[in-house]
């Protein structure tokens, strides 16, 4: 089994944010991927999707599925992350007030993504964009 799915994340559209994660969750469930792994992928990808909507004017997500793992590659052309170490700290957030009013911006996005995946890598260039690669082992 070697499958690939791609999604486009629209900028500033909170009514649709989470659709890609919900879709991949449904697909993995149909493939009989273990329940806990599906939950991990859905949570990590949702956080990434929300980050792309809040900070990066959307972007693209590619998900690779094989027998051993699910790998998500979230690529955006946003402003980049100036201090990755700081961004990884729980509670650190640069989200604006209107985002906080929606219940986000608690500074849990990246820490949650790390917590729920087995591997996570952040490649970021200021002014060019960020690519987050996350892997959940099956």
């Amino acid at each position, binding site marked *: 089994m070697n499958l690939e799915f791609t999604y486009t994340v629209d900028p500033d559209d*909170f009514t649709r*944010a*989470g659709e890609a994660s919900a879709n991949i969750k449904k697909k993995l469930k149909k493939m009989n991927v273990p329940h806990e792994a599906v939950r991990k992928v*859905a*949570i990590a990808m949702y956080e990434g999707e929300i980050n792309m909507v809040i900070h990066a004017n959307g972007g693209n997500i590619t998900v690779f599925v094989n027998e051993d793992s699910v790998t998500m590659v979230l690529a955006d052309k946003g402003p980049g992350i100036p201090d990755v170490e700081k961004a990884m700290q729980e509670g650190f957030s640069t989200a604006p007030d209107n985002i906080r009013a*929606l*219940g986000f911006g*608690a500074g*849990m996005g990246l820490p*949650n993504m790390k917590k729920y995946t087995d591997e996570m890598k952040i490649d970021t260039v200021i002014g060019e964009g960020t690519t987050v690669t996350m892997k959940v082992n099956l």
Partner: protein
Amino acid sequence: MLISELLEKFDERFEIVNRSDEAGETEITKVFCCDLLSFAMARNPAGSVWVTVMGNVNTMGVMALTDGGAVIIAENAALDENAAKKAAEQNITVIKTSLPVFEAALFVHNLLS
């Protein structure tokens, strides 16, 4: 206790906005209270009854992705139109109440114990 059994025990202080087709199969695991969606995303246990004042579309997103059992919107907080629509689409049980978060959660907790 199943979600469907819980729904039958609610009195007039609770309004069932949407009922999942799976309410008769979903066993309640825990009562969970939180208003920050990122915290809820990480910590809402599958099968939980989640009590919150956040009634927007992303609340339903978190419910769907964490496999929550039911969500109670407390304090008469607004459930916006998009959220109600998404609840129906995603088959999520949603209840509204004028009770504060703690009292709504305690009511469910007492029914469970």
